[in-house]
């Protein structure tokens, strides 16, 4: 085998996953029925996807995965999901002015529409939340398609591989290896002896939070405190909050809803950035595990500190009286709400917004950009570098300062009382540097590529585009703000960002490991 990898096994297993993706399309199908919209879009999509699934499965009907095959499978699974996810967009928009619908007028229009659909789909599954839709509304795009867009984020949130392990016995055999490759964060905590049970526990917690959240949102509506949070909107936002997604069927994101709704969204966004394994401990009555967890404390502390600084800035007038977000200068409640919402949303990579923060002072925007670098917790649905990595990097630097003056002293790095393996520390260093380098190089490439077609990005725009996609965050600054769009980028830039979202979701390792092991034959 030239690649040193039995790719057929990886691809064969993909077919199983694709088959089940067809089933999830029942959700938008039901939405289409309820709203009396065309049901053929999702009927045809389901048939197509199922057919693709069965065909791909034939490549290797009895896949046997080794470690390399597992990594390849994980890497491919997210691409496959994104590609499959484009089908409803392309079909639904066919012949309309939709920016993600299939356009067959010319070759340029054809490729652009396919790239747009792929961008939107990858942004969905990787829970990024960056959009290329020209106009976000259920009138332009049907309720069903908008619900599909939300659903992709919910499916991607806890991890499509984790979902497959939880429900498919043939995948569960190699579950531990697979989950390790996909799970956000440096290490996987096995909660139960059987990996499939761990996966099921995680998905159950995720599911339960989503249900409670939807009920609360809809409850507010019935209580008259949220006029436009109807059942559709409640479910749609339920699908994108817990996975730190950030898509909203409303053009104004969460700014479209009342203050009461925004206050309800905040804690659920915050929950999404916590390691879900900790909730499992809480459910078993071991709440102290959560409270003593260094990463949880770091996460809570980071949110509290950044929010406090931003709230003071807003209260003192960092935000002019803007249309979306309202007046914050001298208004305590609004300052606090806008600060908390934006910080939580950007810090853990959700990407909702209740204010057009690109209109804020540069200081406030730079503070938000700083928050975007932090990221959620390992084992959460959040993206970014992750709190635990920053904690360990910080501790390793402190150790270095000490050992450079006292080279003979051996001092381990500890986190939450346990010693961190030296190998893990170096792996985290490698990851962090690679992340920063990829982020920097991509920012340069994006600005060069857009200059090619005559658009000059500001440095804040190009860096935030790179950071928002590799960190799976979504909105950036300037024209890429929470109410802006990535539509104006050239196709090549969009493809680069699709790559960034993919590599960011998989945290680089599986992708590179597969490439390097294929090249490195020593």
């Amino acid at each position, binding site marked *: 085998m030239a690649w040193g990898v039995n790719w057929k096994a990886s691809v064969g297993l993909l077919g199983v996953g694709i088959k089940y993706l067809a089933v999830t399309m029942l959700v938008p199908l039901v939405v289409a029925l309820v709203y009396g919209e065309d049901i053929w879009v999702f009927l045809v999509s389901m048939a197509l996807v199922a057919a693709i699934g069965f065909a791909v499965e034939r490549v290797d009907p009895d896949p046997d995965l080794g470690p390399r095959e597992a990594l390849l499978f994980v890497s491919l699974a997210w691409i496959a999901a994104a590609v499959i996810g484009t089908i409803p967009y392309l079909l639904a928009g066919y012949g309309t002015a939709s920016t993600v619908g299939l356009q067959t007028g010319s070759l340029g229009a054809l490729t652009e529409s396919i790239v747009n659909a792929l961008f939107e789909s990858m942004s969905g599954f990787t829970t990024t939340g960056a959009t290329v839709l020209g106009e976000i509304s259920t009138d332009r795009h049907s309720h069903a398609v908008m619900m599909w867009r939300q659903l992709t984020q919910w499916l991607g949130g806890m991890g499509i591989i984790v979902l497959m392990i939880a429900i498919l016995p043939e995948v569960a055999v190699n579950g531990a290896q697979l989950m390790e490759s996909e799970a956000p964060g440096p290490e996987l905590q096995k909660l139960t002896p059987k990996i499939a049970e761990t996966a099921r526990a995680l998905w159950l917690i995720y599911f339960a939070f989503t249900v409670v959240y939807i009920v609360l949102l809809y409850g507010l509506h019935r209580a008259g405190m949220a006029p436009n949070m109807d059942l559709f909107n409640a479910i749609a936002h339920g699908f994108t909050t817990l996975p730190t997604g950030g898509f909203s069927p409303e053009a104004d994101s969460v700014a479209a809803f009342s203050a009461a709704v925004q206050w309800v969204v905040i804690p659920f966004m915050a929950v999404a950035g916590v390691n879900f394994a900790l909730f499992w401990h809480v459910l078993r009555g071991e709440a102290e595990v959560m409270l003593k967890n260094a990463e949880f404390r770091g996460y809570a502390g980071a949110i509290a500190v950044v929010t406090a600084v931003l709230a003071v800035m807003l209260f003192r007038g960092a935000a002019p009286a803007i249309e979306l977000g309202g007046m914050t200068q001298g208004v305590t409640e609004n300052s606090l709400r806008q600060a908390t919402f934006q910080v939580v949303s950007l810090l853990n990579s959700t990407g909702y917004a209740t204010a057009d923060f690109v209109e804020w002072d540069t200081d406030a925007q730079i503070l938000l950009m700083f928050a975007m670098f932090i990221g959620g917790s390992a084992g959460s649905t959040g993206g970014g570098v992750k709190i635990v990595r920053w904690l360990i990097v910080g501790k390793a630097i402190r150790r*270095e300062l000490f050992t450079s003056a006292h080279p003979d002293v051996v001092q381990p790095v500890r986190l939450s009382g346990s010693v961190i393996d030296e190998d893990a520390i170096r792996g985290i260093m490698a990851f962090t540097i690679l992340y920063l380098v990829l982020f920097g190089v991509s920012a340069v490439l994006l600005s060069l590529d857009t200059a090619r077609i005559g658009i000059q990005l500001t440095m804040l725009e190009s860096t935030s585009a790179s950071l928002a996609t590799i960190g799976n965050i979504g909105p950036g600054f300037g024209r890429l703000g929470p109410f802006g769009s990535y539509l104006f980028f050239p196709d090549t830039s969009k493809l680069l960002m699709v790559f960034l979202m993919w590599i960011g979701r998989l945290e680089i390792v599986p992708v590179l*490991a597969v490439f390097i092991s294929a090249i490195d034959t020593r």
Partner: protein
Amino acid sequence: MPDRNGGRLPTDLGVIARDVGSLLLMEAGLMSLTVVVALGFGEFHAALGFLLAGGMTALVGGAANRVFADAPEPEMKHGMVIAAGGWLMVACFGALPLFLTAWATPPAVMDAFVPAAADTASWEPIEVGGSVTLSSLAYFRDPLHAVFESMSGWTGSGLTMAVHEPSLPRAVQWWRSFIQWVGGVGVIVLTVSILSRPGSGSYALYRSEARERKIHPSVVSTVRTVWKLVVAYTLLAFAMLFAAIRASESAYAESLSVGETAWQALNHAMTGLTTGGFSVTDNSIATYGSPLVEATLLPIMVLGAIAFPVHYVVLNDRNVRELVADLQTRWLFVLLGAGVVVLSIQNVASVQITTGAFATESFVPRSAPLLDGAQLDAVRDSTFQWISALTCTGFQSAPIGRWVAGAKVLVVGAMVLGGAAGSTVGGIKIVRGYTVGRGIAWQFSRVFLPKNAVVTARLGDRTLDRETMEREFGEAAIVTLLWIVALVVGSLVLVNIAGPEFGYADALFEVASAQGNVGLSSGITGPSMSPVAEGMFVLNMWIGRLEIIPVLVFVRAGIWGLNP
């Protein structure tokens, strides 16, 4: 602060104060030498300034040296603190002669320093005690400007507050070049003997013997080896530059007298060889408008960017192959070549959309296939600026502030990486970049290996076992991370206070230039910049020169003491 270290802190403090005191005494000696230069040129106010500064420096240094005379010999653990503290103190005291000379010289005398031939129409008059002068010396009446200039000199950076260098007294011109030259030797000593510890690339490359517990013998032996080389190279560079300037056909070069030519050649040889970058001409190297002078400076700057242990092997053992065998030197040449090509392509492509970004009228009237005159100029400036940036020299031949953002960012890349560890360059250094790259590739290829597999890696001609490789990677990764974080934070601060005419690319460029001890400027640095940014640059130059960790150790020792 209560002494938590059982009475050991004062001992450490004594060791450090005594050695920093010795450094100050040496600096006082350099100042006395400059008094002679000032008297030789008949600059009596400057002589007074340098004499006073020398006296004060000698007083403080001598006192520290005397009071702690019986402190024990310094050990390796003191090395970093002495280096960081020493650099800071030397830079602060080095500002004194600039400051005192500026105050000792009356405005009328200052005006006499402005060259009669200079076109001063665009110069900004500076208010001094009720009258005005055109001499840039007046800027040093501000103590922050003086400290900035001194730090920029001692760290070999080359960013300057003296807008028009020819209007400075000769003694001050000399002092600026002299501190870059001596500071250059200091850096080589720093990397080869003090910072060289297991886990830093230069250790693995250039030292194999067991570590010495005492640092004095190692420092002394390094200085003995290095100074002869530096003097010899400087004389060579002086002769080359002198000949090149005399042979240049540009109007400026032809207007120079023999004495003036020798003076400029000497100063630029000193600052070019030690990759410092201060100049005595108004627009750095662009003043000459001479491709010949630029071409002559290229090998001088490259010499300064090659590790001195390599120079030693090449010259002492007559072993030219070492230039290729040494990992860093090999990569230096590769990067020089590749970067010139890439930057040239970017700049040639941007000739149409930029105005006044490159030298014009002065290029040899010769055409090349495929390129017109303007594009040739872009290639010429790209070549010089890339090499000036990668060797962290900072001689400027083109208004980089007018280049497109892509070209600026490329140059930032060169300034962040820098040349070879063990030379006078700044940046993270080639050996670290290489180690980090190898380490990352290794981390990923290791995914499929069993945990206890025997792995070795090659670093240059040395085969490193797993443990050494991991230690090298850990150190390099931490320095690189800290470097990038300081760069990002610094540029974000700067973009907010630099004013609306500068974009983020300019801010990034300027911070990379200061922290990489390069000295190229996109136009932000100058006497009118915000004091906050100026102070931050002093900090950037300091931490960049010491590769960050010693400064952090210094701060840590200042708060908690040196012991566990």
